[in-house]
């Protein structure tokens, strides 16, 4: 291996896609802790904006690789693994007992029987609702589909939009499809679909859309959602114009900043639709990887091991307001997070998210189709036919 002369041997360069205050602070703490234990390593962090990071990662992995780079689990890392741009870190997992401690995320980090990175946090998805509005309207927390539809009807009658959503960036539609499909057809079917094994024209997918249309057709979502980002949809909830929001746990911070009080925010598991189907959940995992062209792989592996440690993950996730992956880490103290933790611990299985489980091309077309469906539910058949055409091409 020829070492580069640009950086000293003890330098460790990390590319980071977290610019929000909480994640930034979490990483500062990690770096400080690591430097304390490894005083000979000089850690350099390059922070980039999330969306920009997604487009630049391909460039820096091939041209000017850092020693560590944050990314996502599941199919999202597959192109880089297949192109030989990520380093195999199976040895880090084995030497540090991570196969045991990070068991829950092992499957989503494995390609070709090898591990390609280390997960450091994940978070639950579910329906966040306005507790006070539910009380005012005399609505109990729905536990099955009929109760959810009935609650929506009641809210709509009272002039409150049941669900708020912003689909400009498309991915929030993926969350809805995931849950509808997981609850109507179950985890195995959903995984087969995102893996390209089932046609989109399958009657079971149509059944998912039919159920979904029970919320779309009566207008239980805010109109205009294609013009809104997910943050733009939050004011509806804060101002009490809408009562529920299907989102990931990162939204809670935004709700609170928007002016909602802790006691106004409730969290519920997405209710059952087909009785008897075990409940699986969306829980996207954020990860960190060593690029194949990294210059200081030795220290990078030390850093991975450090980030996987139970005590480090505990501290990191308290700052992040998310959940540690390491099974030895301490449970969160925050109420909603605890609720999420319990839900995920009892979950039948965990899905990453539509755009991380399905390959990029399919994800884009799929989420566009879901958005179209949420505006024009009558086009369901045409949309599914189009998706099927794309599926046959993408997974050939």
């Amino acid at each position: 291996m020829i070492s580069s002369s640009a950086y000293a041997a003890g330098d460790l360069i990390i590319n980071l896609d977290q610019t929000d205050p909480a994640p930034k602070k979490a990483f500062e703490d990690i770096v400080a802790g690591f430097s304390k234990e490894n005083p000979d390593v000089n850690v350099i962090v390059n922070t980039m904006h999330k969306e920009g990071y997604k487009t630049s990662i391909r460039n820096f992995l091939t041209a000017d690789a850092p020693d560590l780079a944050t990314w996502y689990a599941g199919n999202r890392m597959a192109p880089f693994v297949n192109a030989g741009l990520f380093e195999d870190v199976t040895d880090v997992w084995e030497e540090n007992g991570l196969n045991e401690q990070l068991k829950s995320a092992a499957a989503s980090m494995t390609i070709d029987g090898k591990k390609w990175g280390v997960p450091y946090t994940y978070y639950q998805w579910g329906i966040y609702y306005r507790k006070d509005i539910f009380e005012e309207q005399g609505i109990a927390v729905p536990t099955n589909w009929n109760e959810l539809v009935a609650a929506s009807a009641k809210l709509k009658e009272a002039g409150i939009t049941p669900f708020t959503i912003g689909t400009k960036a498309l991915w929030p539609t993926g969350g809805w499809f995931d849950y509808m499909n997981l609850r109507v057809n179950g985890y195995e079917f959903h995984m087969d679909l995102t893996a390209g094994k089932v046609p989109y024209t399958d009657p079971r997918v149509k059944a998912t859309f039919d159920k979904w249309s029970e919320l779309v057709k009566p207008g239980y979502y805010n109109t205009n959602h294609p013009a809104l980002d997910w943050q733009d949809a939050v004011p509806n909830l804060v101002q009490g114009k809408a009562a529920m929001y299907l989102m990931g746990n990162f939204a809670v911070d935004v709700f609170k900043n928007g002016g909602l009080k802790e006691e106004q925010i409730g969290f519920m598991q997405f209710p059952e639709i087909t009785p008897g189907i075990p409940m699986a959940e969306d829980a996207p995992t954020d990860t960190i990887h060593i690029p194949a062209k990294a210059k200081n792989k030795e220290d990078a592996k030390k850093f991975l091991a450090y980030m996987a440690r139970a005590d480090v993950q505990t501290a990191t996730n308290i700052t992040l307001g998310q959940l540690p992956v390491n099974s030895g880490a301490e449970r969160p103290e925050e109420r909603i997070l605890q609720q999420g933790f319990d839900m995920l611990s009892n979950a039948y299985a965990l899905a990453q998210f539509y755009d991380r489980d399905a390959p990029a091309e399919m994800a884009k077309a799929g989420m566009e189709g879901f958005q179209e469906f949420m505006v024009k539910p009558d086009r369901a058949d045409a949309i599914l036919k189009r998706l099927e055409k794309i599926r046959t091409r993408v997974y050939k």
Partner: protein
Amino acid sequence: MFLVYVIAPIGQSIAISFYDWDGIGAKTFIGIENYIELWDDEAFYTSLYNNVLWLALYMLAVPAGLMIAIFLNQTVTGIRIYKSLFFFPFVISQIVVGLIFSWFYAPNFGLFTKLLEFLGFEGIAVLADERFVTYGIIAAGLWPQIAYCMILYLTGLNNVSPDQIEAARLDGAKGWKMLWYVIIPQLRPATFIAVVVTIIGALRSFDLVSIMTSGGPYGSSRVLSYYMYEQALSEYGFRMGYGASIAVVLFAIMMVFITLFIVRMLKDEREGY
């Protein structure tokens, strides 16, 4: 420089369009499969249709620019201030124009919604509605484009010979006749430039689509250049070959327009205009 940065990449793009390539892995030669797929791609036709719409409506910038230029071509105190006010939208970046119009169209609190409500109509979320979204973006694009055409015509009007106007006036021409037969022919060079930049502006419309809708809702406001970007470079894309084939089509369309124009121009020259 021209060879390295313009001609060579054109050749490269054409070459890449025959491959299936994700930009990092190995390239696979697939012949004209990308073009066959394009032929059967609804999203491509949506983009093409929107591009035609852009071209047609963008042309309004030329007469509109002329009208404003004539209106501003007077000697009144403070006319320079008015001129600069009209020119202002061209100075600001397309990104900012896009942001301003996004706010203008914003559902619930946008000025446009308020205006409609004031007039007794119901507010429309322009950028969320497949029927209006492209028109909404074109309107935003016209704002700076009209300013551009206006400045071209203002310069042109400076060169209109006063003798001919004087002579025409003696012959009794005024109003529309004067404009049509005396002024506009003299503005031919300005018109030429205005039409060319407007066509090119319409065909490469990208910034506004990207900023205002990202091609949405569900791809209904896509144009070719944006579709190419999406397929080749965006978060869920990285199909270099397919993107390149879209680029080739866009390039071909531009070539057609430019060739038509050059032929027209040469013909006019020969006929002695």
